[in-house]
């Protein structure tokens, strides 16, 4: 728990010290902070990604100090890290799950437990998030492996993945990136919930997220130095989509609000785990009109002729027609599951679910051809390490290739892609 507190406090400091400064100052400060916290990054990364990385590391430390269960990550990160250093570059947006090397010692101790944990707890993922052909970056991505360590809580050993696609300005998406995992964690840890309560917990988290966005609109409008202040004082005309996957050892819980999307690749078949909230989706149209709103076709279907999605975090000016309530799906994981793709519409507008799954699947398979299950042992341990490192690379390869494909197909939006490896072939049999 000490680690968790530490992580939260540091984060608080970061955002507090950042807020009253100009954009340039903000960047400089974050760079300094980055240096302080992760001295191993060769090139000062950008604002968003440095914070992201920093947080990843903080959470990894959190995991290390409170429990050993995530410690295997240390090994795989050391690979990724030395690679970063040797190339003198920072794989910033395309970050891998790099975590401090000093976790390595922990991993040698309890092999058996670890092997079990590996299967259950080690997230292998790749993230790519680029500005693309837009002038503003309004996408944000949040990845928090083992984001809750509360003993006995359902969220223990769960991983959090979120993609947020902002509109109007970036600050609601940023806020979701910075806060939603914490809110979800609080909600999940608040009491011992029955599995059936996932829906309620996630809905409540999204409502709280939306409330926080509203509050910040009122209070620290001057503090957040963003584009929308220059253009219009109406900061409530800003919002964000949110697609969040909480990955448990047994389940994939996807909560979606807006037109970002989560797609499961199972045995080569693309299964959407969320359904886009478009104003012309029949049930959404009915809901909007029942609330007294109108959907007007103006460069596509738009709520009141303005917003091209029917649900979002923020967007106070369109309430109650546009709501922050997510649709939640709970999917049991199977041995046929290959990967989960979360992405903003920058990808989905130009790449179909099937194509995306096909590409991601080929990348994962290419890297790691199906091998016979190995019995645990010291040699197996080493092999596992290698496989893990490469598997992470495979996820990165997949996310980057999907991003490049989106850009190749003339995507005009920001493109953010998260690929999570769901395969269990290294599981002990």
């Amino acid at each position, binding site marked *: 728990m000490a680690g968790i507190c530490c992580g939260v406090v540091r984060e608080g400091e970061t955002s507090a010290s950042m807020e009253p400064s100009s*954009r340039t100052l903000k960047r400089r400060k974050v760079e300094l902070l980055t240096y302080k916290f992760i001295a191993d990054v060769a090139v000062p*990364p*950008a604002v968003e*990604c440095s914070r992201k990385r920093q947080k990843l590391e903080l959470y990894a430390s959190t995991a290390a100090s409170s429990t050993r269960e995530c410690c295997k990550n240390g090994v795989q990160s050391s690979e990724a890290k030395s690679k970063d250093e040797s*190339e003198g*570059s*920072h*794989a*910033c*947006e*395309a970050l891998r799950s790099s975590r401090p090397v000093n976790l390595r010692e922990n991993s040698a101790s309890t092999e058996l437990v670890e092997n079990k944990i590996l299967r259950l707890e080690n997230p292998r993922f790749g993230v*790519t998030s*680029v*500005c*693309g*052909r837009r*002038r*503003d*970056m309004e996408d944000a991505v949040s990845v928090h492996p083992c984001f809750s360590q509360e003993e006995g809580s359902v969220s223990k050993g769960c991983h959090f993945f979120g993609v947020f696609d902002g509109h109007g300005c970036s600050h609601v998406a940023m806020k979701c990136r910075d806060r939603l995992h914490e809110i979800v964690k609080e909600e999940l840890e608040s009491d011992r919930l029955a599995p059936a309560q996932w829906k309620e917990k996630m809905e409540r988290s999204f409502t709280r997220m939306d409330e926080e966005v509203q509050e910040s609109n009122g209070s620290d409008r001057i503090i957040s130095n963003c584009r929308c202040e220059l253009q219009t004082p109406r900061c409530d005309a800003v919002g964000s989509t949110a697609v969040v996957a909480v990955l448990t050892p047994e389940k994939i819980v996807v909560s979606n609000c807006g037109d970002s999307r989560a797609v499961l690749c199972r045995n080569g078949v693309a299964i959407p785990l969320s359904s886009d909230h478009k104003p012309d989706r029949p049930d959404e149209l009915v809901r909007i009109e029942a609330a007294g709103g109108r959907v007007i076709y103006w460069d596509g279907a738009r709520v009141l002729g303005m917003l091209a999605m029917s649900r979002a975090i923020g967007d106070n000016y369109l309430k109650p027609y546009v709501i922050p309530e997510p649709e939640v799906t709970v999917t049991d994981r199977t041995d046929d599951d290959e990967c989960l793709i979360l992405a903003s519409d920058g990808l989905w507008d130009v790449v179909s679910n099937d194509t995306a799954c096909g*590409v991601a699947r*080929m*990348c994962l398979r*290419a*890297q790691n051809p199906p091998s016979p299950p190995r019995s645990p042992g010291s040699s197996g341990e080493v092999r596992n390490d290698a496989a893990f490192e*490469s598997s992470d690379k*495979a996820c*990165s*390869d997949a996310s*980057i*290739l999907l*991003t*490049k*494909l989106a*850009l*190749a*197909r*003339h995507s005009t939006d920001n493109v953010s892609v998260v690929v999570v490896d769901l395969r269990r072939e290294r599981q002990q049999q």
Partner: protein
Amino acid sequence: MSVISSSAAYLSSAIRDNSPEHESFKKFFDCWLSEQNQQLQDLIFTAKSFSSTPVDEAALRSLIERVMNHYECYYRTKATWSRHDVCAMLTPSWLSSLEDAFLWIGGWRPSMAFHLLYSKSGLQLEAPGKLDELIRSITTTTTTTTGQDLADISPEQLSRVNELQRRTIIEEKEISEEMARCQETLAGPDMVELSDMVSEQLGTNNGSIVDDVGEEDRVESALKPREKGLEEVLKRADELRLKTLNDLVDLLTPIQAVHFLIAAAQLHLKIHEWGKKRDAKHHLAA
């Protein structure tokens, strides 16, 4: 090499002869364009031969350096001329009206470089079989096939491109703001006062010669700092253009840089050609 020296020759002769600025710059520009065309052929030849037999990396680098030096020569010359007449450099008479319409502070918009990169990269990625080849190259985990063209951009490269793009857009916005401030000073109190004064004088005095001379001096001295301001903005804009090109070329592998420079030269030359043709047609029609 004789071609290279010719645009450089224009530069020195024009300064020496003190000939009418935009006339000489036009000559320089035409000469520079034909050199660019020549270099484009070299780049294309290199890219083609690279696909059959790998070209020595040193040769690639020296070709890239030559092309980049040519760009640098352009901006150096432009800077010299803008010290003489910044207004002419901001309203280039040597360009077609099509190019004029898409100008950002007397040249191409720096953030366009990223669109160019993504578009060319996309073109190469969507080439038949390329996607399969890329996935296969992941299988083999060898790095021999990576960095062959712009479809092979690595995660590290993409993240650096993305970061460079964001920095470039921020700077582009700052320069646009500076331009706005500069343009707004044209309606400053001294200018309004001056225009008001001379207009009223004109009404009462019928404009004597003595007054005209005085007026010219005063107008000149009022415009001087404003032109200086424009010159500064243009300098920053040109620096950003060159820096963006340099930074992009630096983060690409040599052969990727060759592909990028081909795309840049082709687009530049073609848009100039199409623009000139359109102008000729409109001119005939009118």
